């Protein structure tokens, strides 16, 4: 069974009272262990697709199922639990909380879920992204690549089934970006996670197991390698 199933999904937004279609009848299935790259021009619907996949938004029509559960059928608490337990997010601009240390940023999802031994898990995840010994630093004491690694460690702290990355290398130089991509690929294999990454990066497209091309809110091509 696919961990993420998107069936006939359309999404409309209201802009100045006018409906604008961001996604148009999109269908896609992703299984665990797959590293998926969503490529296409700005505004083609990549980020919208990620938001729907992450249960942060809901389709105007069609269904999005994560681990067999339709996201639109869930109430706020259940959605929050789904996001906590099944989904991890990585953003272009890292989105770390500057008032928290690296440890505290990484363990935050665990603490929000009320889990114990958060520090131990956070230490382990930081080791995965090769940031041992950086736990007590604050985000402003890190480089861009280090910050993105912290964000990846945080996204993986709950061992999610689905990892969603929106332009994870967009704010990094190409060398650092490649290191991050390699890290994401390794962790996808290691943790058997379904990773979906929206990107403009050609290197990322090459590394992906599944290449999904999008245009004007539609999937135009799916290439599985």
């Amino acid at each position, binding site marked *: 069974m696919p961990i993420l199933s998107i069936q006939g999904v359309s999404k409309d937004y209201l802009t100045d009272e006018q409906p604008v279609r961001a996604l148009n009848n999109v269908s896609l299935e992703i299984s665990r262990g797959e590293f998926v790259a969503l490529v296409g021009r700005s505004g083609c619907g990549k980020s919208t697709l990620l938001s729907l996949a992450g249960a*942060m938004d809901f389709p105007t029509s069609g269904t999005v199922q994560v681990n067999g559960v339709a996201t639109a059928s869930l109430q706020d608490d259940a959605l929050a*639990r789904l996001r906590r337990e099944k989904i991890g*997010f990585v953003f272009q601009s890292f*989105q770390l909380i*500057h008032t*928290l240390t690296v440890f505290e940023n990484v363990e935050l999802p665990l603490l929000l879920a*009320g889990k114990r031994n958060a520090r131990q898990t956070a230490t382990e995840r930081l080791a995965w992204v090769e940031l041992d010994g950086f736990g007590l630093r604050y985000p*402003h004491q890190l480089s861009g690549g280090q910050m993105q690694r912290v964000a990846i460690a945080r996204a993986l702290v*709950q061992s999610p089934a689905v990892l969603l990355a929106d332009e994870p290398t967009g704010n990094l130089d190409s060398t650092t970006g490649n290191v991050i991509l390699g890290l994401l690929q390794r962790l996808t294999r290691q943790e058997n996670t379904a990773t979906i990454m929206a990107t403009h990066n050609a290197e990322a497209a090459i590394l992906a197991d599944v290449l999904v091309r999008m245009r004007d809110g539609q999937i135009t091509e799916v290439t599985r390698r």
Partner: protein
Amino acid sequence: MQRTILFYQLILRPLLREPVRTVLTILAIALGVAMVLAIDLAGTAAAGSFQSSVETLAGKNDLEVVTAGGVPENLVGSLEGLPYPLKIAPRIEDYAVVVETKQTLPLLGLDLVAEAGRGAGSIGLGDEADTWKYLTSKESIWLGESLGRKSGETITLLINDQTGTYTVRGIFPDLHGSAAAIVMDISAAQSALKRFGRIDRVLIQTPSYPGLEEWQQRIRTALPDGVQVRAAGAGTNENRRMLAAFRWNLRLLSYIALVVGAFLIYNTISVSVVRRRTEIGIVRALGASQSLVLAAFVGEAACLGVLGALVGMPLGRFLAGGAVQLMGATVEALYVTSRPGAIALTSTPTLLAFFLGVGVAVASAYSPAREASLVPPIEAMAHGRREYGTRVNKARDLWIALAVGLAAMAASFAPALVGKPLLGYFAILLLICASAFAMPALVDLVTGIASRLLKQVLGVEAVLASRSLSSSLRRTSVLVGALSTAIAMMTAVGIMVGSFRETVLLWMNDQLPADLYLRPAGSPAADRHPTIAVELTDKIARLPGVAAIDRLREYEISYEDMPAGLGSVELNILRSYHNADFLSGRKTNEVLTELRDSNGVLVSEPFANKHRVKAGDYITLSLGERRAAFPVVDVYYDYSSERGSVLIDRDLLLRYLPDPAVSNLAIYLAPTASVEEVRAEIENAVAGHQVLIFTNRDLRGEALRIFDRTFAITYALEAIAVLIAVMGIAGALLALVIDRRRELGLLRFLGAASGQIRKLILIEAGLIGMLANLAGVGLGFALSLILIYVINKQSFGWTIRFHWPVAMPLGALTMVYAATVLAGLYPARIAVRLNPVEVAHEE
């Protein structure tokens, strides 16, 4: 024009995008302005009304002749016999109660024959034949038109302890009630008041040449020593001077709301600057000068100030209606008879309140605006808001706080300046400043501790909340500063009033030892002393079960151009039943023995402080025709009147003022007598006289009721200051939510439920409330010491024993805390409703 457009685009339009926060800021200023205006207008209405009827009906006079106990009637003839072209108008001035409506009105006895002879006179009696016929009739009265009576109607009046029926013979214009009074012929008034042979004032019109001082001198030579001749209306001016401290203190309390508002404007403009830091950098890079940036942010504050003032002025006029009732009652109980006059929205207080509102807004915005103007363009564009938010030097600020605190301490030890506790108020201002400087260190310390402690109890939301507050240290410090200032004033006033109340309770234990008290019916006032018929007092003294009675007589006197009370007591009764407290700490018996042996007087603490009199000094009093010097034997604690009183032995006073009537009776029962039975006997004995009988408990209850009413307006002012602060917290939390929307959106991505976001914002509100309560109680305690030992002492001359009233501050603090947390509800709702997808992709 271009600058106006830019101002709109860069400054005003962002304000319009956040209507709730903008409205909250405007309302905070509006409430501050309203408070200042309301207290000013109400003070004028309450204080101005005591003189209106008496002075208006007096017409234009140049001099007046007065003395304690009344001017001997024969002096009128002497004055008229002087070889000068003087116009002499004798008057009786007292009060009567309209039985039907219980309204207390000035009762004026005029020489109506002379007035009518002058052609209608000052009250417009008319010149019909009928008027002449009734002029000197004992039951004829003339009323002000605002009382709504008609000629020919009858009316029952309570005068002293007697009621009588009077016929309205005419109506005179009374300036819409501000000069409402009951007028009767002087001989009828003397008869009704049983004030035979004496009158209260003689008004004199003098020719313009050779000048008022010369006329005063000439008339003085024709009068006995004890009788004073002074400028007409001097009593009114004395009253006004006497009320100055009361009005001054209330006015300053009303400014606290503006001080709290100043913190919030500071915060609003700081937020504005932080948010537009990048824009500031861009416009500076595009050629805007520093002064333009400064003007833009000061202009923003001025706009908020003008709007707040415009909303505050009608609100102030409205609130003045309620305030004048409370102030009028206090003025009457503590100072002088007052009838709330019409509230006039005159230009001076209105403009003062307007400019204060705008001025406070502009002044409090100046610092963040100047900081904005000094931002180097490149730094502003590169670093963004985080750099700015952390630029707080806690250690330096703590040293400044210490220095300012020491200066406050020094100021609090300084004496009064020009009779006002100016340095005491300055000390309060300095302490508030010191507290503001110490706030970043306190916030940092407490949020650091809270972060660790609360994590165990409230979870990770508490960590996020406390970190958020400490990361925006400046903003949090200003918010906590605003709320803690309001709480501090509330706590300080609460402690001061609680201490005062406790002091009064202890004092009453000594001062009210009698079992029953008796006074003429009618509402009491500090300057009204209706009398009880002397035969009645003798009758009561003879009743079975009555062990002793103390005949108290009170007069109005003027001492050093200030009104005061003169009371006579019976020394033998005092000695047997009282255990009075004296400043010297001497025993009652010792003091009273010296009082009798030296033919001296006792003075109250407010009198001693006002006139700088101490035991061993001599004071000279005008009593009847005589002027006599009395040694001050001691100073006694007295909380019944702020005006100050002189106490003298009854027998000694009767030598100067031989009127034996009494103002109050204190009745002591035999040990075996029942209070209820004796009271019933007294009620029988006083049949036909309108007197009120109080048990000891009733009288204490009444005194405390008046006390509590006196301070009701103070509490109202503090409550409004707290309300302003809580509104500021709501607005600031809203700003905080908007500024942190990306972080809040991120938390949703990380799996936070909406309940957790709500909890986070409410914990922030709770932490602000806790910090403010903590700082407020500490600061409030320090301020209460200044209020009790400096400001109160220098303003009113009372010694208040410090007492920590637990219930009131605890209740008020709990309410404030709850209100602060509730103020977080709306921002929390906004936080929950944020679209995480939108906010996470904003940058």
